[in-house]
């Protein structure tokens, strides 16, 4: 028997307008359970600028400001400064897609990290510009199909490693999470809440319509991403202390890839390449994380 330790408090209402099977809707529900109502959300152009609901509706029970693409970390810094002037406390949370975090808002995020702004920056990463209809972002994985990286010439470049980039900024806390591990996700939000400075939470957010998989597989695909080793669950404190939260079962990477239409054109060579990247990432992680010294990395089994 498994006992879940998830708060019953609901700060997100049903009736939001996410696509069926959207991981970012579920992620918000978990996040707000951990963060509670003393939270202010900042949302740029992304799926969540639609999901929350059109004027005058909102599906969350906390204040939410929709702001221009590329400005969230700065806008949130302004909220934090104002709260300080008013002597008020609240979690200031940016909730954005990979377009904001990896691309257009990257500079702003870097600036806020350098200034040690006391905000929680959450990227629900669906690996592309899904709200505009599945275009490539710098978070799109290598060889993936999108509408701007057609199957004849799929994405040629590696995905940016967001957590490592911000670990290099020496932020106090950076972590990855998925909806397949809700307790882990909630724990990470609860932790982020207690730490001062910029916290980054990178959520892999499977997107049924963009990744081309049936909408009942979101949690399964999230789990496969972790169990194949493609998306490690880990935390980094001050760019130094690495903690891996889950050792993968080292399932074959094909189990993850073949469930998604965006990878349907991949050859055995492409899968081999994926395995090599996973292995490289884990070797790096093992080197950085003392607790991992003895674990075998079994990507090529």
């Amino acid at each position, binding site marked *: 028997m498994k006992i879940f330790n998830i708060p019953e408090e609901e700060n997100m209402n049903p009736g939001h307008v996410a696509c069926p099977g959207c991981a970012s809707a579920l992620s918000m529900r978990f996040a707000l359970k951990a963060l509670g109502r003393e939270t202010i959300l900042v949302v740029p152009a992304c799926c969540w600028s639609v999901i929350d609901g059109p004027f005058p509706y909102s599906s969350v029970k906390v204040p939410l400001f929709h702001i221009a693409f590329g400005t969230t970390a*700065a806008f949130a810094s*302004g*909220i934090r400064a*104002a709260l300080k*002037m008013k002597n008020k406390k609240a979690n200031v949370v940016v909730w954005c897609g990979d377009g904001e975090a990896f691309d257009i808002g990257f500079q702003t995020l870097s600036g806020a990290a350098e200034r040690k702004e006391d905000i929680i920056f959450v990227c629900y990463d669906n690996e592309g510009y899904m709200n505009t209809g599945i275009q490539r972002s710098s978070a799109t994985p290598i060889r993936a199909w999108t509408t701007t990286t057609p199957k004849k010439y799929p994405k040629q470049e590696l995905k940016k490693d967001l957590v490592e980039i911000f670990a290099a900024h020496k932020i106090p806390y950076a972590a990855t999470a998925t909806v397949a591990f809700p307790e882990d996700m909630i724990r990470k939000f609860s932790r982020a809440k207690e730490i001062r400075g910029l916290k980054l939470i990178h959520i892999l957010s499977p997107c049924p319509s963009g990744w081309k998989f049936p909408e009942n597989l979101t949690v399964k695909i999230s789990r496969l991403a972790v169990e194949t080793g493609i998306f490690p669950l880990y935390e980094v404190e001050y760019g130094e202390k690495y903690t891996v939260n889950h050792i993968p079962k080292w399932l074959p990477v094909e189990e993850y890839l073949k469930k998604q239409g965006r990878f349907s054109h991949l050859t055995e060579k492409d899968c081999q390449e994926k395995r090599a990247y996973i292995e490289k990432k884990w070797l790096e992680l093992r080197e950085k994380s003392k607790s991992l010294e003895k674990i075998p990395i079994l990507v090529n089994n």
Partner: protein
Amino acid sequence: MKKLLTGNYAASYGAILSRAEVISAYPITPQTQIVEKLSTMVAEGKLSAEFINVESERSALAVCMGASATGVRAFTATSAQGLALMHELLHWTAGARLPLVLVNVNRAMAPGWTVWCDENDSLSQRDTGWIQIYCESNQEVLDSVIQAYRIAERIMLPVMICMDGIFLSHTQEIVDVPEQEKVDRFLPPYKPPVFLDTSSPHAFGSLTPPPVYFEFRYKLQQAMDEAQAEIEETGKEFGNIFGRNYGLLDEYLLNGAEIAVVALGTVCGTCRVAIDRLNKKGNKIGMLRIRTFRPLPKKKVLEDLRGVKKIMVIDRNISYGHHGILHQEIKSALYRELNIPVFGFIAGLGGRDITPEDIEQMVNYTLKHEEPDTDILWWGVNR
């Protein structure tokens, strides 16, 4: 207390006396000194505010917007390229009805690189929904920043205070710095009707479909219309307390004038000198300084210009493919009301001097011609 202040420091004192609570900016010549001064004042504890050094002008405005949306008074300053970089957020600030104040130190747009003055930077932001006030002196810069917060917070629109780069920003003038106590009486603390508040959660700026978007824009224009009376009332009350009156427009010897010179910014000071000289020789020249460019007080412009025989607009700016921006604005104000020739001079782009002699010669040209020879009268350009 009287102090010798540059326009930049006058702007800083304006923000200090207004008790700006969150200040954010990015360095750009010729604006930089405004925020240098403010950061010093915050560091020395002379101003209770959060000062945030950001990595771009866009972020500077975003910080101020976040602060304003949380219900505190925010201030930023910029110039030219920085203002252009803020462009998208200028729309957002006004659309979100955030009453913050921005000082723009007018500088010509690159390329080629320039730090000298013209007004193309702020005038090309005219359709963003910001109130725009153009200053003629450093005293007016300081006074206008204080007035700007009151206007902005009453009608919930942002205000841009514009001053000519170098000519005001880096020139010292004697400025009467008002007493804090009096400013506090004039400008009460900012208390917004709604803001980011966890005890009363709202979503701001959500997806706005056609059945409602239009009405938001109608309301923004209504606010702009209301701003005219607010600017006048604020200017008058400022005069009652501080002895210096301000309005939408600034008329100089317009009564009985045959030619009205219309301009904005520091060239108006030069015009005053030239007009005095010309009128001593028996001419009847007056000037209409456009202090408030947005909202454009069209009715008052008309009232002021009724009776003159010719209008002479001096633009330190240009709308490429048309003509001077103020020229175009004045013409639109006259439509079907006054059928008189408008002489549209373009002068001083990129900080080239416009001297009293230049103005005298422009007036002489206007006196000698029934109509302008060309749509644009380029002044002093080497062809």
